[in-house]
């Protein structure tokens, strides 16, 4: 049996170890009125939500020993006591009946590869022996980790202890990477997560393709709505009448892909009409003369032809921004990998903020602080011979984090660097655009593919071994110590016993460490010992945190820049770099340049995708509570296009891209809220893994339709908005 030849596996009925969860029993028969929930025996414990990466702190309640609800912790700066839709539905991730509850191993039975449940010992021994084999034949460094979520830290630790230091997450090259790189080039530091946007104090907010409110990062939603309540001017640039567009003074229904033209025109107005913050710009920036020369040709009239936005609207919105400055935030967005020139677009956003003087000013961007939390004392990691940088092969000079797509490329072909993958909580085939072919190629030649997840996501199809982690409600993870407005620690602890044979990530990593002779890196019996030690270094304890969940500390550093004191930015010049010598030296445009986007062929539409408030990517599609709220996505079609194709809301269609790839069937939503030349769908649907019994086969998957990916040469991001699709009516 050759395990390297991997057929793509899906769970069959026999292998799907079915989870059973105590149902939420309904008590009836109370004669004096409806039942009063919460009158039984109540227990509670603190948690940090893991449904998205905002990491809100909350409290898990049980009633009469049964799971009841999760609510926000009022002391938590991420949530202010209010979890979002997905966080409130977090209890559903425990109740998901399709959870992985047994380790699964790829075996050959009757000439077919199948997954078979095995015990932990067998699974862990197999992984350890393959890791040793890779180390002997190729070197310890030839194993890469793909990770998303807090628990990935345990596997990063395991691999670093082993001598492998290659790590990549889709949050960089498929999401925030361009803006982090652009802001670092401009200001010497990135925006970070949670975003350091000071929206609660903003008087004007500009959203460019960012649909906060549908994208439900809790602090972003809370502060944006505070700004609306305070009467801030909202300007939304979006081909779709998004939720925030409906609350905006200006909705600029831009032609997709022309954002840089608009940004340049705004700069043209703000510099040309001398609306920029002269004191701030003179004191803090470098490169204004070059920028002024650069943007002079890009008048609103020029931009009109590119963007379709009338010159008057461009001028009016620019003047509104300037009138509110410096409390004006040109929001940097989060998912910004669109057209391959995304670092340059994010640079334009960074520069515009600098012109308005919003960085380090109330209502713009504030400075964050985290707790100085000592690391648990451990021996030094062995030297890793290579890191994930080797996968970039001299490209992407400003990639400040692992590039997932580059690591995948470096696992394919005769000169493949990587021989083993750990994939933690990252559903690669849906997270990366048009990637399934490459994943198959890589899986065909890798010596080891380990997937750690709580549900059978599609990525298990490439695995030798699938390890069932318990949900965040059943485990300890690292303390949350995110940069925020005030330094703050939060605790995640088990509220329930792990379901079936699922185990916490820390336990899995330690077990593997012990099998690899790395005991000295795992000197604890329970991970709570690590947390207790760390907490005691900062005047708290595990016992205290189990009671309060969140502990806030006093700030020691200023939140904003001092206008009267000199400040050295972390750039080579020590100033905010409107003109980037670093980019110039590396062979890139030192100031943002506009390239017109490709137009759709006849009868094709630009495929635009985004978030829906009920779900986190495709991770929550099978969560029963969230599935019920939004079981499937729909394709938004303007009535003009709907008429052209004879479509009504609720009809099934398939989307076909320019290469002929056809989506799963998906319903139409005819709506005026989308441009006639574009289609929109929420990302995260169209699962194909049959083990996800709710989500499988429901809705369409945008990622599989993305055959045109524009790679950002500056940092390796995958531009995903360059794809065109046409509509194919469902045959009756």
């Amino acid at each position, binding site marked *: 049996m050759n395990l390297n030849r991997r057929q793509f596996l899906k769970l069959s009925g026999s292998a799907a170890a079915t989870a059973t969860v105590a149902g939420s029993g309904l008590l*009836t028969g109370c004669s004096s009125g409806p039942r009063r929930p919460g009158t039984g025996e109540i227990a509670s414990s603190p948690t940090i939500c893991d449904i998205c990466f905002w990491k809100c702190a909350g409290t898990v309640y049980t009633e009469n020993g049964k799971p009841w609800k999760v609510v926000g912790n009022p002391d938590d700066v991420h949530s202010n006591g*209010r979890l979002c839709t997905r966080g409130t539905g977090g209890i559903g991730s425990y109740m998901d009946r399709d959870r992985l509850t047994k380790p699964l191993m790829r075996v050959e039975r009757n000439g077919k590869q199948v997954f078979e449940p095995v015990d932990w010992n067998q699974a862990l021994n197999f992984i350890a022996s393959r890791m040793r084999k890779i180390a002997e034949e190729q070197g310890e460094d030839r194993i890469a980790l793909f990770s998303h979520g807090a628990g990935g830290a345990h596997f990063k630790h395991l691999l670093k202890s082993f001598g492998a230091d290659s790590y990549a997450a889709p949050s960089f090259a498929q999401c925030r990477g361009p803006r982090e790189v652009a802001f670092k080039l401009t200001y010497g530091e990135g925006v970070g997560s949670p975003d350091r946007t000071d929206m609660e104090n903003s008087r004007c907010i500009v959203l460019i393709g960012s649909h906060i409110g549908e994208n439900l990062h809790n602090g972003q939603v809370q502060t944006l709505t505070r700004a609306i309540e305070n009467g801030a001017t909202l300007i939304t640039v979006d081909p779709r009448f998004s939720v925030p567009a409906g609350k905006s003074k200006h909705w600029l229904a831009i032609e997709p892909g022309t954002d840089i033209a608009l940004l340049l025109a705004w700069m043209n107005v703000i510099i040309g009409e001398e609306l920029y913050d002269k004191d701030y710009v003179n004191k803090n920036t470098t490169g204004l003369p070059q920028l002024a020369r650069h943007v002079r040709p890009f008048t609103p009239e020029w931009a009109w032809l590119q963007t379709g936005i009338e010159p008057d609207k461009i001028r009016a919105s620019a003047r509104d921004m300037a009138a509110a400055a410096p409390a004006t935030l040109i929001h940097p967005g989060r998912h910004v990998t669109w057209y391959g020139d995304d670092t340059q677009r994010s640079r334009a956003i960074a520069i515009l903020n600098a012109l308005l003087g919003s960085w380090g000013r109330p209502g713009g961007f504030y400075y964050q602080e985290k707790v100085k939390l000592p690391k648990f004392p451990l021996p030094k990691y062995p030297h890793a011979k290579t890191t994930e940088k080797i996968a970039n092969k001299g490209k992407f000079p400003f990639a400040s984090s692992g590039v997932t797509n580059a690591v995948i490329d470096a696992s394919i072909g005769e000169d493949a660097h990587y021989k083993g993958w750990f994939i933690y909580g990252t559903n690669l085939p849906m997270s990366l655009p048009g990637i399934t072919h490459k994943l198959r190629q890589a899986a065909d030649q890798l010596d080891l593919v380990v997937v750690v997840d709580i549900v059978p996501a599609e990525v298990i199809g490439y695995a030798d071994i699938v390890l069932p982690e318990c949900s965040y409600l059943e485990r300890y993870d690292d303390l949350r110590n995110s940069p925020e407005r005030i330094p703050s620690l939060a605790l995640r602890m088990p509220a329930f016993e792990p379901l079936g044979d699922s185990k916490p990530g820390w336990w899995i990593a330690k077990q593997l460490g012990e099998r690899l002779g790395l005991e000295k890196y795992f000197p604890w019996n329970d991970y709570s010992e690590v947390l207790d030690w760390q907490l005691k270094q900062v005047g708290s304890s595990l016992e205290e945190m189990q009671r309060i969940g969140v502990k806030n500390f006093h700030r020691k550093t200023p939140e904003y820049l001092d206008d009267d004191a000199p400040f050295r930015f972390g750039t080579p010049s020590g100033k905010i770099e409107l003109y980037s010598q670093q980019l110039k030296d590396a062979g890139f445009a030192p100031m943002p340049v506009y390239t017109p986007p490709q137009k759709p062929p006849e009868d094709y539409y630009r495929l635009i995708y985004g978030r829906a408030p009920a779900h986190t990517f495709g991770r929550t599609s099978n969560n029963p509570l969230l599935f019920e709220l939004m079981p499937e996505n729909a394709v938004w079609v303007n009535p003009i296009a709907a008429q052209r194709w004879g479509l009504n809301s609720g009809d099934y269609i398939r989307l076909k891209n320019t290469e002929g790839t056809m989506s799963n069937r998906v319903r139409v939503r005819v709506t*005026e809220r989308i441009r006639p030349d574009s289609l929109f769908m929420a990302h995260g649907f169209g699962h194909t893994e049959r083990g996800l019994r709710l989500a499988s086969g429901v809705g369409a998957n945008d990622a599989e339709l993305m055959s045109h990916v524009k790679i950002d040469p500056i940092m390796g991001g995958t531009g995903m908005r360059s794809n065109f699709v046409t509509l194919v009516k469902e045959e009756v």
Partner: protein
Amino acid sequence: MSRYAMVIDTRTCIGCGDCVVACKTENNVPAGLNRDWIVEATNGRYPDLTTEFRSERCNHCSHATCVYSCPTGASHYWRGTNIVLVDPGKCTGCKACIAACPYDARLIMRPEGYIDKCTFCHHRVEVGKDPACVSTCPTNCMHFGRIDEPESLVSRLLRERRSKTLLPETGNQPNVYYLV
């Protein structure tokens, strides 16, 4: 009598559905049933559009036709307030209240068959808490309180802002208000 009202700001509501999930977990509402829901209304033609999102539920009407139409007294006002509850022990599942409710706010519990609905989380109200939906809303667009008390937040909001109710023409005197 204490008159409780919910005041929801459509200017900040984003239609995220958190209120729906919060109700479901708080009250153990069975799969497939909901006591509250989201309505999205779009007006106009591209690109001149407006949208309104509303979190809707039982209006706990001051003149509740469901209470008056109930033949067994199962539908009743809770402790002399306007909060409308159903006593499952008295409900025969005849559905007269469903026919009488202008808001389609009542559901048939399964598998038991009695009628269920939003309770304004009376179990929380009686200990001084807001209903679960109000207390979880990430936009803070929902407010709850007594409008028979002039200085309550809800009374002030209704004085200071323009508001509307749904189907006031029915004469039911609904107590869920939408700030516009």
